[in-house]
């Protein structure tokens, strides 16, 4: 079973089209193994990316050095998945 300890989902908001293309460039950085939950659309729409733990620091440095604003939408994905699983099991018991 694939688990996601330490994976974070970052919500990234581009200030302008230049920053939007910087975010889009992340799509080609295969080594980061990023999972775009919400793809790059336009400046008005945030981009949500699941970032594995091993890439977190690199991705955050990449964004911060380009002054791209982001927030952490999900601190630790596995915690949320464990809650979901627990809820399903307890509801099934009921």
């Amino acid at each position, binding site marked *: *079973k*694939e688990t*996601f300890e330490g994976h974070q989902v970052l919500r990234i908001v581009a200030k302008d089209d230049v920053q939007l293309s910087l975010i889009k460039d992340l799509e080609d950085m295969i080594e980061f193994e990023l999972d775009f939950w919400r793809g*790059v659309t336009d400046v008005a729409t945030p981009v949500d990316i*699941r970032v594995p733990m091993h890439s977190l620091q690199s991705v955050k440095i990449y964004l911060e050095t380009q002054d791209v604003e982001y927030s952490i939408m*999900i601190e630790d994905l596995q915690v949320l*998945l464990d809650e979901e699983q627990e*809820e399903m099991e307890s*509801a099934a*018991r009921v």
Partner: protein
Amino acid sequence: AEPRNTDSFDFSRYHSISEIYSFQDMLVAENPNLVSKVVIGQSYEGRPLNVLKFSTGGTNRPAIWIDTGIHSREWVTQASGTWFAKKIVTDYGRDPAVTAILNKMDIFLEIVTNPDGYFYTHTSNRMWRKTRKPNSGSSCVGVDPNRNWDAGFGGPGASSNPCSETYRGPRAHSESEVKSIVDFVKSHGNFKAFISIHSYSQMLLYPYGYTTTPAKDQAELHNLAQRAITDLASLYGTRYRFGSIINTIYQASGGTIDWTYNQGIKYSYTFELRDTGRYGFILPANQIIPTAEETWLALMDIMDHTFKNPY
């Protein structure tokens, strides 16, 4: 905790594929004069592609198609689809609009459109989106079933890399989960609306995704979408954006509703259900029913418009 009937089925929680399949069988057994199950094919791993048919008679009546779960990790869609199935049965004979539609049209609902992927999200990888067919020459598995349709297939807006989440597949309709719908829609030949439901990001989209060329019915589709999201928002204030795929999100080739629209099914829409909050695909189960209820209002607008505007 197997429910004995669909009235005791717990719509407010997520269910395994076997629980959804047994719900479908119960609904059919409870409503022999309204609901039947059509198996339109098999998934790569051999699971049945079950479509619930809601019909009050007639032969090959004009029909409406709704599918959920083509991207397996979008769990709120399969859960909403289950709720829609029960809603149709509950409202027929009670709600005048639903009754009028079903007295003249059929509704087809495929709840688990990507069963292999859905099973895999429950057992191995909650983040799985694609089908589960291996890709020859690659260690990566699966094709994005919303890039595999013969509509701008292979163009920009899909990946040729089997390891990508938007891998389009080796050729159009290579995935049995897609080809089965293609064959069914073509053999039926009388679909008037096609609604494919995804999550998340709260959008109502119409063709096209693979080209900037406006759909010839763009004005009507736009106005109907506007009315639908207005009614959707009336329940809980959930705000949607709407428009053509390419103008509202991004270029996407090989998409479902581009193909259905090119087949002549005018009222072709894609929903992106909740969430815009902080959960993404891991939408808490307590939002299933509110999501299904608000989406139903928009679905009813589209179905009602289709019924009242025969073509």
